[in-house]
């Protein structure tokens, strides 16, 4: 018997009720049922980090999380890390300035991971940044501008991003 499950979860500050198959991953639920397509699918087995979201404040691979595991929990996606008026956060501005994205496919995951890092470690060294993003693969930039963007955004001090409440 593989029936639907009812789940309740907070996504970017809003409560959602959903019924879905247990095999539905959090990534697919976010993208297909909530239209939050900022979370990208790269490898779908936890190696690339393109699908990184915050689950109860901690970065996880949404492709390796079942939506039912997010029941009664709080999820924040890339969409939840920007102010609603569409302006860029300091972290995003820094990515733009440092050319820390080219195709942009890894970028959402990078920003989510960077956000989690800066929430815990507001002034990380470049070493700590490289360590923190080691679960986020980029094929375009060679990582140096990404590390620099995060480093500079951190040095400026204050909250790096605005989280939608």
């Amino acid at each position, binding site marked *: *018997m*593989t*029936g639907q*499950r009812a789940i309740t979860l907070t996504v970017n500050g809003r409560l959602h009720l959903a019924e879905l*198959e*247990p*095999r539905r*991953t959090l990534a*697919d639920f976010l993208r297909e049922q909530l239209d939050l397509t900022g979370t990208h699918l790269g490898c*779908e*087995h*936890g190696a690339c*980090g393109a699908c*990184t979201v915050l*689950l109860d404040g*901690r*970065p*996880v*691979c949404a*492709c*390796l*999380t*079942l939506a*039912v*595991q997010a*029941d009664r929990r709080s999820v924040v996606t890339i969409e939840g890390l920007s102010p609603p008026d569409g302006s860029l956060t300091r972290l995003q501005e820094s990515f733009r300035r440092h050319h820390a994205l080219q195709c942009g496919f890894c970028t959402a995951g990078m920003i989510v*991971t960077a956000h*989690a890092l800066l929430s815990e470690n507001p002034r990380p060294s470049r070493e700590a940044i490289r*360590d*923190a993003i*080691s*679960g986020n693969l980029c094929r375009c930039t060679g990582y140096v501008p990404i590390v620099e963007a995060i480093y500079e955004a951190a040095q400026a001090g204050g909250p790096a991003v605005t989280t939608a409440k």
Partner: protein
Amino acid sequence: MKPPRFDYAAPETVDDALRLLAEHGEAARLLAGGQSLIPALRFRLSAPDLLIDLERIEVLAAAEPRRLPDGAFAFGAMTRHRAFERSPLVRERLPLLCHAMHFVAHAQIRNRGTIGGSLCHADPAAEWPALCLACDADMVARSSGGTRRIRAQDFVCGPFMTALNPEEILLEVVFPAWPARRGWGFREVSRRRGDFALAGVACIVDLDQDGRCENIRIAIFGAGETSMLATAAADALRGRVPSKQNIREAARAARAGIVPSSDHHASPEYRSDLVEALTTRALCQAVSLPEPS
């Protein structure tokens, strides 16, 4: 691919989980952090009828380990890798575990993956089975028939095979308290940070007042069908004051003691070289001797 269809249950007690396991037998799989099981489902290597999610069973995921009468630390099987990485208690009392966590995959995986999941998955290249061997840990398993304690060296039986029977759940992992002065070493080589180990060594060395090895455990992972204790290497050092010379002997014994696996990541010759080199370095680290450059 997307996972195949399965039913899902999230019991709140161990007894409920055991009941479900007994009912469904081999058609059920236990879900811990899911960082190995969900990829297996996605690759269609596994197609269970029922997933039993252990996440809501509070006793498996206590924030702090239980302290046992003999001073040992009992960690719930659902303790996340991240908890071992960040815990001040682990850093202070079981520092090898804290250090080794930096090598386990990457942050996103460590936020979900668990010690119990890693041990029960028993990947030959995983760190946890070797850490448990090095620290002489015990695994506590429960079935409807009762509870039993399994020593680390008896727990892993083969690649992806453990001594657990299908109706057992791993409850906790017990780490004996470390003596006040214990040296430890850990070295791992992988192609990229966080990749599965091509080979790795975890060791602990206790010296007596005369500086001789009183207790020494060297665990090797990634190199063979399972992680294993390098007993000949430990014998080479036991009762002796460690020196560059006898560490080299021990490392050669470690190399001789493995049957290196061959795959597209590394040849058996390379794995053998790694085992010898990493044993040397880990032992030097444990006894504070300079490592060969």
